[in-house]
């Protein structure tokens, strides 16, 4: 059964503007792998060149940070909601 992943505003351009997408997977790692296969544009925003989750992107299983669970090996149950929470800054003109 697919789980809901909530997509934050800055990453919505890469999911066809959707604010939530449904993806299959038994663990957070599998879900994110399937997510970035489906929406390839997301990949560089979530993973670095070594394939590790970027440190300014936090992933939550319901209201818990996966860093304090079993990270990407954290098991996902039906009905769990996954949130991607990147750091954002207002009028940052560095881009």
């Amino acid at each position, binding site marked *: 059964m697919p789980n809901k992943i909530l997509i934050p505003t800055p990453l919505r351009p890469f999911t066809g503007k959707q604010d939530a997408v449904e993806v299959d997977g038994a663990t957070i790692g599998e879900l994110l792998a399937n997510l970035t296969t489906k929406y390839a544009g997301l990949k560089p925003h979530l993973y670095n060149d070594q394939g590790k989750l970027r440190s*300014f992107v936090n992933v939550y299983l319901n209201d818990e940070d996966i860093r304090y669970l079993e990270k990407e090996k954290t098991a996902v149950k039906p009905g769990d909601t996954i949130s991607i*929470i990147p750091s954002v800054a*207002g009028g940052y003109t560095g*881009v």
Partner: protein
Amino acid sequence: MALTNDEVKRYSRHLIMPEVGVEGQEKLKKGSVLCIGAGGLGSPAALYLAAAGVGTIGIVDFDVVDFSNLQRQVIHGTPDVGRSKLASAKDRLLSLNPHINIETYETALSSKNALDLFKPYDVILDGTDNFPTRYLTNDACVLLGKPNAYGSIFRFEGQASVFAMKDGPCYRCLYPEPPPPGLVPSCAEGGVLGVLPGVIGTIQATEAIKLIMGIGEPLVGRFLIYDALRMKFRELKLKKDPDCPVCGTHPTVTALIDYEQFCGVAPAATEVGVSTASSETETDVKELKRKIDAKEEFFLLDVREPNEYQIGKIPGSTLIPLGEVPQRVNEIPRDREIIVHCKMGGRSAKAAAFLRQQGYTNVKNLKGGILEWIDKVDPSQPKY
């Protein structure tokens, strides 16, 4: 610090609540908050802090009021455009409440001045709009043991928390490192709903006021996320990271560092995925104008969003928003020069780098984007 008769009259709606009362109001009068920035978040926060009777409000800013600020920075008015934000904010706050003391610091917050600026204040209210100042504010708060009423906004989404309380997490526990410049879109490019900082700044002010009075449950160890479009508040759990470089058990950051360098925005730094600009990779608006006038053959790619395209465009451009470039790459010809532009040159640099990766050999980024085009070539178009 006793209240005068005028103050009793003014704060009567506070005084009749037992949770505040005379004692709480006197704590507010004795209390102090330093607002970092008098912008989107600082405006509503400072207004409510002043109205509530926080005795000393400090503001750090060095900006000037611009027309594009007024859609959300409610502390400033139309006649203030062109004035310093500090002068404008101070006038407004003192007209709201002449019983309080406003301290202004016309300076950029830096590693050199932050500790001295923060020291006299009870609470620091982080209304910063950039990563170097945010990490600087966080670290200075941790080093001094000052609570940091934090808020951040982007488009329709806001975040708030209270960091650096004893036993509570800090911003670095949440995000140990900043994103490299260029990876996260900015407000100037991403936009922000005007009332959003009103909600988040008011939450920050609420937390500052609660902390000063010592009432209620502070937003510590909790990360509040507000989605204005869905009108939803969510709360995520935050933990103090024992390995946090600044507030962990064995901190490696024990003094303020160079935050521009830490955030990769030092002048020498180059953007992610973008090699150092040269005439091979970059062109300017004058050269573009010459090419258009000479009817040279090239493909002008605009990677902004459709709503930006509606405001203004460079003649002959084709719109493919940055997020759609990977799927629509076959619409971009390979047999001629490609010039990519956006609003200011950030997104187009990313698109140009992507196209080069896809094997395009003649791709140039338009320096300064459409804003520079308007400045130097077509001033009849509105700037946004």
